[in-house]
C-alpha cells in the first residue's frame, strides 16, 4: 500500500515520462503505469484526469481529440516544450533525493 502523498507526488513525473515516448490517452496511460510498476501503481480515473487537466492548464501538455477506427472518441495528450523542461527538472530532483536516500540506506539491512 503506497502512501497517498507519495503516489500524488509521483503522478506528474510519471505522466511526463510516459508521454516522452509519444502521445497517449488516459486509459492507456493507466494501463502502462500498472504494467511498469508491476501492479503496484493502479491509478484510478478520478486521480488521473484531474491531474491531466491541471497539467494541461499549466502548459506541460496539450490535448486533442482523435477518432479511432472503431469510432471511439479519445482525448490524446502530448508533451510540450515546457513539459519536457519540467520533466528534466523533476528528474533531477527525484534523482537527488534518491541518491541521498540510497547513500543513507547503505548501512541499513535490505528491506523486504
Amino acid at each position, binding site marked *: 500500500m503506497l502512501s497517498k502523498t507519495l503516489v500524488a507526488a509521483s503522478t506528474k513525473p510519471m505522466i511526463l515520462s510516459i508521454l516522452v515516448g509519444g502521445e497517449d*490517452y*488516459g*486509459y492507456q496511460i493507466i494501463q502502462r503505469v500498472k504494467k511498469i510498476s508491476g501492479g503496484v501503481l493502479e491509478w*484510478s*480515473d*478520478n*486521480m488521473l*484526469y*484531474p*491531474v491531466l*487537466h*491541471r497539467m494541461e*492548464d499549466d502548459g506541460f501538455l496539450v490535448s486533442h*481529440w482523435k*477518432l479511432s477506427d472503431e*469510432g*471511439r*472518441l*479519445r*482525448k490524446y495528450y502530448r508533451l510540450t516544450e515546457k513539459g519536457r523542461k519540467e520533466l528534466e527538472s523533476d528528474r533531477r530532483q527525484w534523482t537527488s533525493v534518491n541518491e541521498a536516500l540510497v547513500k543513507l540506506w547503505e548501512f541499513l539491512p535490505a528491506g523486504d
Partner: protein
Amino acid sequence: MFDLERAVKKWRKSHLGMGSIEDGDLAELESHLRDEIDSLISQGKSAEEAFQEAVGKSAGPAEMGVELYRAHARRRGTRRPLDDGGFTLALLGSNARMAVRKMKKHKGSTFINIAGLAVGLTFFILVGLYIQFELGFDRFHKNGERIFRVEQILVHDSGPEATAGCPTPLFKALPADLPEVEAASRVVRAGPVLITTPENTRIEAPGAFYVDGAFLSMFSFPLLKGDAATALSEPNTLVLTKSLARKVFHDEEPLGRVVRVAGDDCKITGVAEEVPANSHLQFEALLSVSTISAESFTRWFDNWVPLYIMTSPGQSAQALGQKIRYFLKKYQGDRSRNELYLRPLPEIHLQARVHWEPGLVGSSKNVLIFAAVSILTLLLGCINFMNLATARSTDRALEVGMRKVAGADRPSLVKQFLGESLITVIFSMVLAVLAAWAVLPSFGQIVNRTLILDPLQNWPLTFGLLGLTLIVGGLAGFYPAIVLSSFRPAKVLRGARSSGGRNPALRKVLVVFQFFISIGLIIGALVIYRQNRFLLNKDLGYTSDQVVVVPMRGPREKFAAFRQELLRNPNILNVADSDYLPYDSSNWTNVSWEGAGPEDYIKINVNYVDENFIPTFAMTVLKGTAFTEGMRSWKENAAILNEAAARKIGWDDPVGKRLLYNVDYRSRTVGGATVVGVVKDFHFLSLHHPIGPIMLRLGSTDWLGGNLYAKISTRDVPGTIASMKKEFEKAYPGFDFAYRFLDEDFRQVYLEERKAGRIVSGLSLIAVFIACLGLVGLSSLAIGQKTKEIGIRRVMGAPISEIALRFTREFLFLVALANVLAWPVAYFAVREWLNNFPYRIDLGWPVFLLAGGAALVLAFVTVGFLAFRAAAADPVESLRYE
C-alpha cells in the same frame, strides 16, 4: 435483457448533474469507461458484469465532481457552488465561460462578427435617436392638444399652394366669429434682430418673433421674470430668454430696461426660460406684434401672417376644421376659392411643408428613409453573424458530436449556442453604445439637430436597446443554433464533417442579399448626390452669386443718394431693391387684361422691384425693354412679364399691352399697368415648384421694398461689406445692417435634401463595409476548407493566379447576381423619390454601372487577396494542414 447502451446512458446522466463536470470531461470519462468495459469483456466477462465492475472501479459522480472542481477552480480562481440545485444556472455560467474561451480562440471571426454587428447597431442607435427627437417635437406644451396652426390653401390656376401665411386680419376675425376659438396669436418672424442698449451694447438675437399677448398663455414657454398674461399685450414690449438677457445685461436686472430693436424702442417685460431644442419655434426674443402698426393687418388679400389658435376645452378639432374651411368667403367674397384648415401642433415639425413657415421643419419622408436604411444596415450585420456562425460549423461539428456523445440533448445545445450568440451581441451592443456616444456630436451636425444619448433618462431608448439585444441575439443565434444542434453525432464522428453545414445554398443567398442591399444603397446615395448637385447648380435664370442681401424698409427719398454713395466703391457693381427675394416671391394676385372677357383672369405672382433689379441679377429681357427710371413718372405702372405669364394670357407679343388689376395693395387704387417687356423665365420659387407666371412691377416712388441687393466684386469682400455697413448706418440710423449672401441663403432651402444625401451615403458606406466583412469571413472559411485542395493543385503545377481566380470567380458571380436583382428595385425607388421634384436629373445607366462596378471591384479585391494569399502559401504547409 441487459442493455449496455442504456446503462451507459444512465451512468452519463448521473454525472451530468454535477455542474463541475463539463461535457468534454464527461466524454473523456465515458471513453475511459468503455475502454475498461471492452477490456473486461475481452477477459471473458459478460456485458453486465463488465459494466458493474468498470463502474465500481470508477469514482462516483460526486467524488469525480469534487476532484474536477478543484482542478478547474485553480483555472478560474473563483468560488463556485459545487452542487447547485440550479442546473440551468450552472450550465449558463459554464456556457458563458466557454463562449468567452471560444471567442478568444477564434479571434478573427469573432472580430468580424462583433465589428459587423456593432457598426450596424451604432447607426441604428444614432438614427433611432434622431427619429425619436423628430417625432417628439412640441410635445411639452401643456395646452398642446388644443393648439393648432391655421394654414391656408391658396388656389391658383397653376395649382393649389399650401401656406402658413394667413390673411392679415384673420387673427381678429377668427376668435371674434367663432366661440370655439378661445385664443389666437400671430407668430411673425422678426429675426435675426439686433438689440441695441442706450449704452450702445449691440447683441444679435438669431431668432425672434412678433407675437400677440396671448402667445405666452397658449404655449408653455415659462417666464422666469414677468407676468405671462400681460408681458406682450402692449406695443413696444419685449421678452428675452435668459441667455440673451445675460448677454445684453450681464448680471444687471433686465426688467423694465428699454432697448432698440428693429427700429423700435421696446421695454423689456419678461425673461423666459431657454427654448428646448425640440420646439419648432426657436427664438431668443419675443416682441409684441402690436408694435407693428395695425395698418399692416387690414387687408384680406395680404397673406403673410402665420396664425396659431387655441381651441376651448373639449372642442372637437374636426368640427372646427369643417367650420373654418370656407371661412374666407365671408371676407374675400364668394369667388374666393381659398380654404383654411387646422394643423395640430405636434404635426407641424414633420408634416408641414408650407410657405411662410416660421418654424423649424424636418421631413417626414426623411424620417422614413432613415428608419428604413438603418434597419437594413442592422439586418446586414445580423445576416453576417448568422452566415459566419453556420459556416464555422465544420469546426463545431466535432464539438457538437462530442457533446451529444456526452449526453447533451438538443435543447441544451440550442441553449448553449443561443447563449453564445447573446454574449456576442451584448459585446457588440456595448461597443455600439460607446461608439454612438462618441460619434453623436458629429452626427448631430450632419442632421442639424442637438441630440443627446442618455440611457438613464431616456427610458424608451434603454428598453428598446435591451429588447433589441435580445431580439438580435435570438434572431442571429437561432438559425445557426438549430442547424448546429441538429448534427447527428454518428454521421459527424464518422468523418462526414466536410459537409460544411447543411445549407451552403442558404449562405450564398444571404451573401447575395447583403450585396443587394448595399448596391441599392449605393445607387440611392449616388442619385441623391447628383440630384442635390443639380438643384444647387441649376441655371436659375439669373445670377445670384456675389450678391449681398440686406433686409430693410424705409423712405425711398434717401435711397437714390445712398445708392450713389455705395456705387462710389468700385467693388460695388450695382445696387437694387425689391419686395421679395428673387427666389422666394410669394405675393400672388389676380390680374386681368384689356380685351379680356368678364371671367378672364389669371393668378400671377407679383414682385415690386426697382429699375436696377434686372441688371443686378443679369436677367435676360427677351422682348421690349427693362425698367428705366423714367418709367417711374408714368401715370400707370410699368410691368414686365415672364414667358410663362405671356403664354398663360395668350399673348405672342405682350409689349405695349395693358394689364388690369382688381386690387393694388400698395396704392389701393384699381388700376392698370402697361407691359414694357418680357423677361426669360427664372425660378422665383424654390426648385420644388415649376415656374409659373410672374409680373415684375416698378415699385412705388415713396417707399422702399423689403430687400436691398448689392452685387459686389470678388475683390476684398470684407472691406466692401464694411464700407457698405458704414454707408448704411449713415443713411438709415437705427436700422440693422443684417446682411447675408444670397447664394448661401438659397442653399438653406435644400437643407433637408442635403441631409438625406449625407445620411444615405454614410449608411451605404457602412452597409458596404459590413457586406465586405461578411465576404471576408465567408471566403476565408471557404478557402480554409479547401486548403488541402489548393496544396495539391500547386504541387501539380497549377499557377498561383489560376488557383486564386478559381475561388474568386464563385463569389464574383454572387455579387453580379446581386447587381441584377438590385438594379430594378433601386430604379423604382429612386424614380419615386425623383418624382417629387419638377426639375430633376435624368436617371441614366452610369449610376447603376458605377454602383455595380464598385461592388464587383470591392468583392474582387477582398476575395482575391485572400485567395491569392492562400494559393501562394507553401504547398507543403497546405498539405500538412489537418
